[in-house]
């Protein structure tokens, strides 16, 4: 996978000369051409955009959670035993967050001019590890569903399994979005067009998926 990189500083920031989005956080004084008190640049839209996206996902899972609580008030939820593989999957997704941070650190060092030992490799090794762990997590979740299915347990077996399937499948679908983001980042690293905001946004999303899973596991463990 070693690829020659020609220009290290490939993480670009939006500059004031780039047209729109170059800073409205403060006013310009209405003077004749005197642009005082202007900020250099606004945050890249991807930085804000990812928080907006995460807010929407948070609301959706808050809705599922409140549905579970309200539903519990009508008729008690049946106790179920969670498939043990979920705990292993939890370790995998936490580990993937750690490897992603290692990757970010490596890329940051690379952008600062500190190359790898071989002075030529793109610092994407930990990104691949993160992607692999993410795929393992999804495979592990799939294994849990297959195990339940083989025991004759489906979505409509009882309300607890209904919530189990809904929450785990909804989370897995969102994880697929994160995997797509990681693949995109890896592609951009190799093509020397990666923006810092893209990497930051992808990593925030990925960490959020990990935190969301830990929350869901605790919810399922406590409520079901």
């Amino acid at each position, binding site marked *: 996978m070693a690829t020659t990189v020609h220009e290290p500083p490939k993480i670009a920031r939006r500059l004031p000369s780039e047209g729109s*989005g170059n800073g409205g956080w403060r006013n310009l004084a*209405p003077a004749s051409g005197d642009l005082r008190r202007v900020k250099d640049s606004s945050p890249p839209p991807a930085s*804000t955009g990812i928080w*907006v*996206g995460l807010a929407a996902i948070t609301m959706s899972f808050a809705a599922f959670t409140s549905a579970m609580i309200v539903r519990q008030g*009508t*008729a008690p939820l049946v106790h179920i035993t969670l498939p043990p593989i979920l705990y292993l999957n939890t370790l995998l997704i936490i580990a993937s967050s750690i490897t992603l941070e290692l990757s970010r650190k490596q890329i940051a060092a690379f952008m600062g001019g500190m190359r790898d030992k071989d002075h030529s490799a793109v610092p994407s090794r930990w990104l691949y590890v993160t992607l692999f762990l993410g795929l393992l997590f999804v495979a592990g979740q799939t294994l849990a569903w297959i195990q339940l299915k083989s025991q004759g347990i489906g979505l409509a077996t009882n309300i607890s399994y209904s919530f189990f399937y809904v929450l785990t499948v909804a989370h897995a679908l969102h994880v697929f979005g994160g995997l797509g983001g990681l693949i995109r980042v890896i592609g951009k690293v190799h093509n020397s067009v990666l923006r810092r905001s893209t990497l930051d946004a992808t990593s925030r999303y990925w960490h959020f998926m990990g935190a969301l899973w830990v929350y869901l596991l605790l919810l399922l463990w406590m409520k079901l």
Partner: protein
Amino acid sequence: MHDMSTHAVPHGAPTSFIRKHVFSIDHKVIGKQYYALALVAALVGMFLSWLMRIHLGWGSFAIPGLHLLSKNGAPGDVMTPEYYLQLMTMHGTIMVFFVLTTAPFAAFGNFFLPIQTGAEDMPFPHFNMMSFWVTFTAFLPIVASFFVSDGPTLGGWTQYAPLSAIGSAGGPGEGWGVILWATSICLFCIGQLLGSLNFITTTLDMRCKGMSLMRLPLTAWAWFITSVMGLTAFAVLMPACILLILDHVAGTSFFVASNLVINDQMLPHSGGSTLLWQHLFWFFGHPEVYIAIVPGLGIVSHILITNMRRPMLSHRVLIYSMGALAALSYMVYGHHMFVSGMNPVSSLAFSFPTLVITIPSTIVVLIWLGSLYGSKLRINSASLFSLGFVSMFISGGVSGFFLAQPSIDIMLHATYFVVGHFHLVMGVAAMFGIFAGTYFWFPKMTGRMMNETLGKVHFVMSFIGAYCIFMPFHYLGIAGNVRRYQAFTDDYLIPLIPVHKFITIAALFTGLAQLIFLYNLIHSRFWGKMAPNDNPWEGTSLEWSTATPPPHNNFGDKMPVVYHDPYQYSVEGASADYVMQTSTEQLKNTDEEK
């Protein structure tokens, strides 16, 4: 005297027809596409309301050709009770989602938010394109549901469980009709979430130099606040619809209670909560009311200011009031559930913020009226519809005071009083906002002017017609006329039939006025008088600084720089009646935002 100094990034305009007009990533084209979708949806929704009104006035009247729409629903061209409910459900769904949400927010917001903020486009243009096409796709299941075997769902736009969750046992349309409805709404939610993402990031990150938050026009603020509401509200409705679909196709029991017997058959569900749907739906549903109306508050304020030639009494307080409306809208949803059997303490808890929400609403109205007082308002179609909006907002809002109190709401909840209330404050007011925006921005969107005479005729007919339809609704409600009835056979309802006939005639008359608007819109688009210049209304915000219609990247080869607040009209000592935001003219006698 205008400064457009910063160079823009070269922004290649598409050349192929498909990329330019169909799968376009240009926010202006997407805005027009949303407008066209809303227009088609509004015509469908209005047509359905005509059918319903004719049936309510003259129940045995055969509507020629109605059997072509539904053989089972209208045998002999007379609609069945079930088909009446199906049409009512489709009318509500189409109008709330595909007209009132789509036109003032997605259509005008897409076209003008980037321009008013000084951006060359939305930050995620491909998401923006997806937003429209997903919304368009969402419209298709609704249309398709008319043509499935037992027709569309009959559960009302609120789709209360358990009726909506028990499948075809619930009646015509409760099987496939509900599945199609929920699929449509799921898709609609995705489209609106993608749109909100773009609106929020455009407002926060894409503003040009000098465009501080307080220098944004009120329209931009309204769209921003609406997008925040949309983000949180649609993100809740989508999970609710997913659970509803699962109750249908997977046999789950989220919303269907145990031992429910329908038509002598016990349903195989167990332990579901019928109230759960109401909680999830109304957590979306009440903010949705403000998603429909807040863009109108911004549009109408913007237009009134331009025509009064002076700013509102307080720019900041108007913004804070719109923000307060948005925040409070999440705390009041339980007032839709006063008759659900909830704990009286809960009713009180929801009643209090419902009464509180009238405070920011009243502040907005008082700012409008105080600003209008003594102004020399320029009378044109846009300003007339803006005044009409104010009138409808007040009239519809006043009945909200009654409904906010559980003891009164319990009596009025299932009556025409509620129908009159929400049609005035949310439906007609929002429609008037759409009309005002259309007459105002048409020259910027197309380069041509709409016919003012036809516009004024349209306003007078719509204003009178709307009041003739919806004020009697309040009287009917107080008289105990239950809503959703398709015929009035009870002794106490029979004397009210003449009122219904009057309302039907008023509805047909008002609908006729909308055909005048449609003619004006289409005729003016192709053959209307050319706009005299880029700024025919002598406005100050950035949309009037650029060419008409705006170029692909909005501002050509120079990006704007903003030096002034958005509404610098009649400033003493200024060189003209108005000072545009991009003007470098120094103003001494004004208290601008810093």
